[in-house]
């Protein structure tokens, strides 16, 4: 009896660890950001007010809360710059996720159908670019896409264009960079879902009169749906907040929310507005995550 209780206690403690982790490294930082978003900017160190001073006691605490105000959120809604920045981010994230899905699905399908002995090598080759720094890979794209870069040289050599095309600092460059960088995040969940699929299901569908393309739509796609959802979220959510790729490959017209946030933080030194931007971004991204969790729960 003593032993069981002790084990219970150990189990509970083990469960507690990830929660403590979440509280310490997710909830607390978020509360701090939320607090800053309700503060006012000031020229000081740190550059916002009010500051919580425990030594002032109860009255100090009341004054602290009284000084918090949601006016930064009003600022966000009053200036269309922020709205456009959010919309641009969502647009880029949605479109590039869609492109990723279209490009990655056939690759994942081919991987899943490849002979077993090749699968390991092929999956590795999808992940291999990750062994070099992300930043270097994006800079490499700057090189490829620039005026006299590899892409233009190749296009001219193949007589597809007469003069160099401007790639850099366009939306296209941002899409190329994002699709390239997030490719494995889409391929791997799709591969995991497709690889699990029983081949005899495809034979059964054919046997019951379904030609290959209909089998794909009626059997393969529905059965890989968990992979599609996982890959979509895995790409869409971080792309919305993407900073490096649009910053290096895009222009001011492709300003995504990450860049606006950076500008507020480091350019304007307006921590409260930057924090408010971050809080709103989180609020935008939570619904799809919850939706996914609900779906997961329903499948199980």
């Amino acid at each position, binding site marked *: 009896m003593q032993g069981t209780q002790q084990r219970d206690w150990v189990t509970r403690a083990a469960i507690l660890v990830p929660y403590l982790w979440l509280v310490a490294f997710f909830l607390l930082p978020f509360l701090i950001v939320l607090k800053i978003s309700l503060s006012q900017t000031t020229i000081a160190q740190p550059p916002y007010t009010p500051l919580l001073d425990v030594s002032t006691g109860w009255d100090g605490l009341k004054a602290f809360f009284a000084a918090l105000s949601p006016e930064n959120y009003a600022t966000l809604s009053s200036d269309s710059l922020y709205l456009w920045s959010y919309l641009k981010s969502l647009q880029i994230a949605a479109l590039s996720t869609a492109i990723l899905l279209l490009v990655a699905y056939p690759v994942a399908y081919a991987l899943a159908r490849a002979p077993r002995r090749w699968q390991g090598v092929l999956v590795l080759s999808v992940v291999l670019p990750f062994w070099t720094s992300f930043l270097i890979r994006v800079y490499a794209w700057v090189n490829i896409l620039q005026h006299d870069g590899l892409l233009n040289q190749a296009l001219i050599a193949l007589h597809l264009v007469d003069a160099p095309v401007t790639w850099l600092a366009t939306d296209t460059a941002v899409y190329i960079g994002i699709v390239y960088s997030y490719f494995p995040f889409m391929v791997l969940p799709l591969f995991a879902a497709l690889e699990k699929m029983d081949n005899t299901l495809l034979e*059964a569908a054919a046997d*019951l009169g*379904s030609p290959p393309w209909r089998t794909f739509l009626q059997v393969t796609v529905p059965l890989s749906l968990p992979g599609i959802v996982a890959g979509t979220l895995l790409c869409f959510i971080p792309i919305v907040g993407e900073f490096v790729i649009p910053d290096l490959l895009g222009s001011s017209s492709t300003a995504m929310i990450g860049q606006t946030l950076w500008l507020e933080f480091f350019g304007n030194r307006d921590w409260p507005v930057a924090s408010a931007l971050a809080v709103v971004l989180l609020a935008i991204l939570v619904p799809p995550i919850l939706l996914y969790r609900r779906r997961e729960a329903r499948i199980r």
Partner: protein
Amino acid sequence: MAARPIVAFEDVTKRFGDFTAVDRLTLEIFAREFFALLGPSGCGKTTLLRLLAGFEQPDTGRVVLEGEDLAGVPPYRRSVNMMFQSYALFPHMTVAGNVAFGLKQDALPKAEIAARVDEMLGLVQLRPFAGRKPDQLSGGQRQRVALARSLAKHPKVLLLDEPLAALDRKLREETRFELKELQRRLETTFVIVTHDQDEAMTVADRIAVMNGGRLAQVGKPVDVYERPNSRWVAGFLGEVNLIEGHISEVYPSFVTFESESLRLRLPHADVAPGAAAFALRPEKIRISHQMPEAAAENGAAGVITDIGYLGTVSYYKVKLDSGRVLKAALMNEQRQSARPIHVKDRVWLSWAPDAGVLLSD
């Protein structure tokens, strides 16, 4: 039986790399037949079924369905349906959805699909489970969904690939009879692949015994069991005592067979003098303590060395005076305590003159 076969394999060969799964095989299956392909694993029986379903293409020869050469016809255009060994039910669809799948491919009117699905679920007694997903069913229920799904399109030929292999023994034995009954009622041609000879014998009108990609023997269950055409078939189907010897004399009315242990006088068979084996099923042998009349030419004396009690029957190992051991089986008609034969008893074995077969292959 109709003169024209519904299915014909004509000199069909199928190789996988160096392995020849089906070797120049010719076979005809007739309409409304329950036909079994029986053989050990790797004998090519499943390949034969897959050739008919269209999942494999023959290297040489033709597969013909109702007079039409199936070469180049993809699986989804063949009016045969298959019940898979693993059932291959679509996990994301309900029971009704699975059964309706094939009908939807033919774009039948919704009302007709619903009616047919209901009919099929009634046939396999699964109406109350129409809305369930496959993973919410028991093994036996999944098996019936697979059966209903493969029958829903009223195929010209239903292919069953080890349909009962995943069921536990009791359910398997019950389901054999249900399958047979279903086939009789639907008057559809069934082709079943199995490695289980009891299954093949129970359900099939005709059995093709396969070995090494070839047909060893084709015939009614009683024919392949009672009159096997080779030592291999005799040994593969059930228990058999194979006594090697030679046919010494052939007379118009009888032949004589001699071996180290036995000298037999057998009714005339279509045999020539030379090496042969005498195949005798254990259950055809009678055991008695007294020397039976006329045992001289169809019997032998020996000592019981071992008794295996199996409930319905007991197997007796009898060591003949020549040293040769024969296996005999007796129904346990009496309670075991009353069983009169014991180990070390000296007994006489006897059998009817036509109880065994002479095999030269």
